C-alpha cells in the first residue's frame, strides 16, 4: 500500500487552495506535479554544476556531462534497456515520435503502408501523415470497438497488417479512453511481416513498470513531464541495432563525426539524434524523477492507481447524466477517465469544476479523430497519479453533480 499522505508531503503545490477550497488536481495525464526532490535536483544542477555537456572540458563541463549521461543510464535502467546508448533524449514525446516518423519515413516508398490507430494522440498521427505524404506510402489505422478497445477482429478481417506494412505505431495506453492496448500481440503481427513496431508510451511509463526487453516494441516514445520530471525533456528508446541503422533527424552540433563543407559523417547513437545543446538540467531532473518513482516502486504506484480507477469508475457511472468514453471497468485500463455530462459542453464543465478547485481538462485532448469516431465533439477528462486520493475522487463526483444541477434547470433539462 502506498503511503499517500507521505507522498503528498513531497508535492507542496497540492497544499494550495482555490478560494476556500483545497486544490483537487486531476489533470496528471496532461502534466504531472513535481516533487521537491526533482525541483531540488534542477536547482542544484543550475546552482552548482551548470555547464554545457561534452564540448566543455573544464570541471563544470565534466560534472554537467556526468549529470546528463548519468540520467541516461538511470532512464535505461528504469525501462529495462540493454544499454544506456539506447536512450535518446528529445524535448518531448512529440519530438521522439517525429524522430521515429522522419527516420523510418526516409525508407518508405509508394506502395508501402504505415499502420496507426484511431485512438492515437495527434502526435502519433500527424508525423505519420507527413511521412506518408512525403514518400507516397499509404496510412491505415486500427478502428476501436464501441467500448473503446482496439478492434483486433476488424483489423484481422481487413488484413490491416500485411506484407506491405513497414511501420506499426500504436499507443500503449490511450490518453482519452484509458484503454491499455495489447502491444506484444500487435508487435508480433508487425514483426511477422518485417515491420518496425513503434509505441507511444507517454501515458504508460509514468504509471506502471516497463521492460522494453519484453514489450515487443522496437522504438518507444515517452515524455518527462508526465512522470514527475521537468518539461522540455522526452525520451526515445530504441533497439541499438535499429538506431544504428537509422539516418540522422536534426542536424547540428554534437551529432556529427567529421564535417566537410560538402558532406558529413555522423556520430553513433544516441548522439546522432541529439543535435545542439540538449536539455541538460531537465535530463538531470528526469533522472531525479525516476529515482523518486523507483524509490516508491512502480508496481505499488500501479496498484494504487488501479484501486483509484475502479473507485472513480464506480462513482462516475452512478451519476445520472454522466456518460463515460471508453472502458467502464478497471480492466486493462489506465487511470485517465473521459466523460461527458449530457447537454453540458466540456468547457463549461471544466469552468464550474475549476470554480470548486477541481482541475480537469475539457476538449478533444489532442485526439479529434477518436472523439469523432465515438460520436462526441469533445469530452472532459479526469486523471489520477500516485498522489491522488479517494477523497479527491469524491470531490470530483460532488462537483459533477453540482455542475449538472447548475445547468439543468437553466437548460430546462433534468431536475
Amino acid at each position, binding site marked *: 500500500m502506498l503511503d499517500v499522505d507521505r507522498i503528498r508531503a513531497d508535492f507542496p503545490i497540492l497544499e494550495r487552495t482555490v478560494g476556500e477550497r483545497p486544490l483537487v488536481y486531476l489533470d496528471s495525464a496532461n502534466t504531472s506535479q513535481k516533487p521537491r526532490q526533482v525541483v531540488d535536483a534542477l536547482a542544484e544542477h543550475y546552482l552548482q554544476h551548470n555547464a554545457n555537456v561534452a564540448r566543455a572540458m573544464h570541471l563544470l563541463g565534466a560534472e554537467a556531462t556526468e549529470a546528463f549521461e548519468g540520467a541516461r543510464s538511470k532512464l535505461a535502467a528504469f525501462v529495462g534497456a540493454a544499454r544506456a546508448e539506447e536512450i535518446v533524449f528529445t524535448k518531448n514525446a512529440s519530438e521522439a515520435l517525429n524522430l521515429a516518423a522522419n527516420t523510418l519515413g526516409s525508407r518508405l516508398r509508394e506502395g508501402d503502408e504505415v499502420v496507426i490507430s484511431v485512438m492515437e494522440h495527434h502526435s502519433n498521427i500527424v508525423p505519420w501523415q507527413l511521412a506518408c505524404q512525403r514518400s507516397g506510402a499509404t496510412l491505415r489505422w486500427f478502428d476501436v470497438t464501441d467500448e473503446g478497445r482496439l478492434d483486433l477482429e476488424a483489423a484481422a478481417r481487413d488484413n490491416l497488417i500485411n506484407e506491405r506494412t513497414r511501420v506499426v505505431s500504436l499507443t500503449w495506453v490511450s490518453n482519452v479512453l484509458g484503454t491499455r492496448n495489447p502491444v506484444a500481440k500487435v508487435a508480433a503481427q508487425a514483426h511477422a511481416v518485417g515491420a518496425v513496431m513503434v509505441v507511444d508510451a507517454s501515458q504508460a511509463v509514468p504509471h506502471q513498470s516497463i521492460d522494453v526487453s519484453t514489450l515487443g516494441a522496437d522504438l518507444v516514445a515517452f515524455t518527462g513531464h508526465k512522470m514527475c520530471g521537468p518539461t522540455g525533456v522526452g525520451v526515445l528508446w530504441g533497439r541499438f541495432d535499429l538506431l544504428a541503422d537509422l539516418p540522422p533527424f536534426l542536424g547540428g552540433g554534437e551529432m556529427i563525426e567529421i564535417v566537410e563543407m560538402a558532406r558529413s559523417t555522423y556520430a553513433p547513437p544516441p548522439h546522432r539524434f541529439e543535435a545542439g545543446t540538449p536539455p541538460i538540467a531537465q535530463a538531470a531532473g528526469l533522472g531525479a524523477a525516476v529515482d523518486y518513482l523507483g524509490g516508491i516502486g512502480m508496481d505499488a504506484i500501479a496498484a494504487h492507481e488501479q484501486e483509484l480507477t475502479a473507485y472513480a469508475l464506480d462513482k462516475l457511472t452512478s451519476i445520472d447524466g454522466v456518460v463515460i468514453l471508453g472502458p467502464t471497468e478497471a480492466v486493462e485500463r489506465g487511470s485517465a477517465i473521459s466523460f461527458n455530462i449530457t447537454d453540458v*459542453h*466540456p*468547457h*463549461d464543465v471544466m*469552468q*464550474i469544476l475549476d*470554480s470548486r478547485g477541481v482541475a480537469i481538462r*475539457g*476538449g*478533444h485532448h489532442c485526439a*479529434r479523430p477518436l*472523439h469523432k469516431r465515438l460520436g462526441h*465533439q*469533445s469530452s472532459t477528462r479526469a486523471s489520477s497519479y500516485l498522489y491522488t486520493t479517494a477523497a479527491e475522487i469524491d470531490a470530483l463526483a460532488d462537483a459533477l453533480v453540482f455542475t449538472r444541477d*447548475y*445547468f439543468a434547470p*437553466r*437548460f*430546462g433539462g433534468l431536475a
Partner: protein
Amino acid sequence: MNIDELYQTIILDHYREKHHSGLREPYEAEVHHVNPSCGDELTLRVHVDGDTINDISYHGEGCSISQASTSVMTDLLIGHSTAHAMELHDKFLEMMQSQGRIEPDEDVFEDAIAFAGVSKFPARVKCALLGWSAVRDATLQATAPTTPSDRPSAG
C-alpha cells in the same frame, strides 16, 4: 471568481435558443473557424447586399460562451452595414481583452454586455470571440474585390 458572473442568464438563454441558427442560402462567403484547444467549431455564412449584411447563418458546436456569443452577434449585425459590423467587432474585441476594465455601453452592445464578465476569465475570451472573428473574416471575403482563393481559414 464567481461563476454566476460568467454564466449570466442572457448567455444561457442564447445558448439554449440560438438566434439565426442554421445554414441558409443565399450567401457570398462561408468560413469555418475552429478553436483547436477545446474543439469548438463554427461554420458561418454571410449574405451581403451592397453595404448591408442581410443574413448571417451558422452551424456551430461548442461551449455555451462561444455559442451564445455567436447568437448575440447575429442579433447585433443582421440588417446593418458592413462598416458597422467591423466597428462593432473591434469594440467587442477591445472589451474582451480589457480583463473587465471596459464597462460596455448597453445602447451599442445590447445583450452582448453580458460578455463583459467573460473578459475576466482569460481562458474563455477566445470562446466569446469565435463567432465575431468568423463574421469579420466572412464579411471581408464577401466584400473583397475579387473572390479569394480556396484558402483554409484560421480560428
